[in-house]
């Protein structure tokens, strides 16, 4: 499978990666090289083979559906790159918001 510039631009958009125009052609070459190498998998007969999603033999455990922590809004918001807005400025653990650029008019 060889990827062209447009396909690379489409993948970059899906992955939310800004890729400069002049980088599209070299990236198309690199990614095509990797995919061509990967295609040797087509030599393997996988008819009737169950796909393996996990190596764990264990059944994933379930826990009771209840709140196990909370009340740490300030800790969670401490790393917000755009800053945080708190519901109660005097009690930051009461809750708050991450901020993003305006999305509605």
């Amino acid at each position, binding site marked *: 499978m060889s*990827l062209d510039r447009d*396909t*690379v631009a489409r*993948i*970059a*958009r*899906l*992955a*939310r*990666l*800004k*890729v400069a125009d002049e980088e599209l052609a070299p*990236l198309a070459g*690199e*990614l095509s*090289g*990797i*995919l061509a*190498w*990967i*295609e*040797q*998998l*087509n*030599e*393997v007969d*996988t008819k009737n*083979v*169950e*796909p*393996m*999603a*996990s*190596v*764990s*033999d*264990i059944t*994933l*455990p379930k*826990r009771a559906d209840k709140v196990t922590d909370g009340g*740490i809004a300030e*800790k*969670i918001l*401490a*790393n*917000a*790159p*755009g800053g945080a807005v708190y519901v109660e400025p005097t009690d930051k653990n009461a809750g708050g918001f*991450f901020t*993003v*650029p*305006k*999305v509605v008019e």
Partner: protein
Amino acid sequence: MAALTDLSLAALKAAMGKKEASAVEVTEAHLEKLDAHRALNAFIAETPDRARDMAKASDARRARGEAGLLEGVPLAIKDLFCTDGVPTTAGSHILEGFVPPYESTVTANLWKAGAVMVGKTNLDEFAMGSSNMTSHFGGVENPWKKKGDNRKLVPGGSSGGSAAVVAAYMVPGSTGTDTGGSIRQPASFCGVVGLKPTYGRCSRWGVVAFASSLDQPGPFARTVEDSALLLQGMAGHDPKDSTSAPLAVPDFAAAARNPDVKGLKVGVPKEYRVDGTSPEIVALWDKGMDMLKAAGAVPVEVSLPHTKYALPAYYIVAPAECSSNLARYDGVRFGLRVPGKDLIDMYQNTRGAGFGKEVRRRIMIGTYVLSAGYYDAYYKKAQQVRALIARDFKQAFEKCDVLLTPTAPTAAFAAGEKMDDPVTMYLNDMFTIPASMAGLPGISVPAGLDKDGLPLGLQLIGRAFDEETMLRAAAALETAVAFKARPAGY
């Protein structure tokens, strides 16, 4: 007594136990080595203040008779483990400035056992690489050099910093993570022991995720026994990681202290004899088998027919999982934000500026193989091949107890080599990736020096959750090899 920094972890434990040295003295001695070898660029952050506080607290615990398994032992932590209040970067620009508000389970277990953190080690960005050259914070220098050649060599990757600091005697042990070989390959390049446990043995909670079905934390040390002690401190069931195995932690150190391999069936997979492997490594592999045989082990030739497909299958599975895991870096909740004209533009600018070239490549491959119309041809196919790889190992382990293979196809290479074509770099992990795909434990043991004076490792692979047999065989190999070399100047 030898210098404190020359002692193994077990010997340090004994010295502190006999009050020959305090944790504060041990920590100070190692912090001096951090100062002396800063040029290796092995640490992203050193934490001397925290180390001194932890050492004081350790001495106080010992005085109260509450010494833990790793009481007072200084350790370096790969900067992929979240550490409460200490910046964690994953080697990436996109996480620069991020200070975790919580501690990973594995590091919390180590501190509970009494260990002291001296710093966070450098790594390939998001653990994606085999040379440590993809780190946003620059490459790490391998303490080893070729005889008569002053060029800087890579320490391997992705846990390159963690391997280098142990090889340079800056710490007796460190933590790493292994997705496709990121503990074992740098251990081989740096002449130290590196252990990847069975998937599920150590909790992944609080470890920055790369490929969740493959990622597994594990230790580096200079002896097999030390690696076993560290694993004992790191392992254990964790309800916060749903894939963490609900099993008790065995006495791994006891297994490592018992290098008895009489009658042990050691499998040699014939498909690992591939073109491109250095003849010296093949000779070393044969010699390793002869040594185990001399110690009473029984060699068995086994077949793992799908070996050559493990690498391409991995380069679908791992990028697919990485593209999902790394979707969280969007400039909203933590890390870097690069403004844009709207929300999508902000995402794209942030991710475009925050990720390096290799990470970007893998996200794009992952996005492509998971995209509509290609899922069955790539992702499902890779998962089917993965099932066949796991079946190969299962069948091989009906005939043997442990497998012996080379760890890496070459010794350490020069910084900047193998950078032109991504696939050339990927081939570094050809011997480690199959066991990763099957979730099996593997350990790299230093087995000798090549003609240039560089260390080479051999890998032992065990059955799932049978690290003890693997450690026993590794200790037997270590005893027979008697690797005493250390890098000049360290």
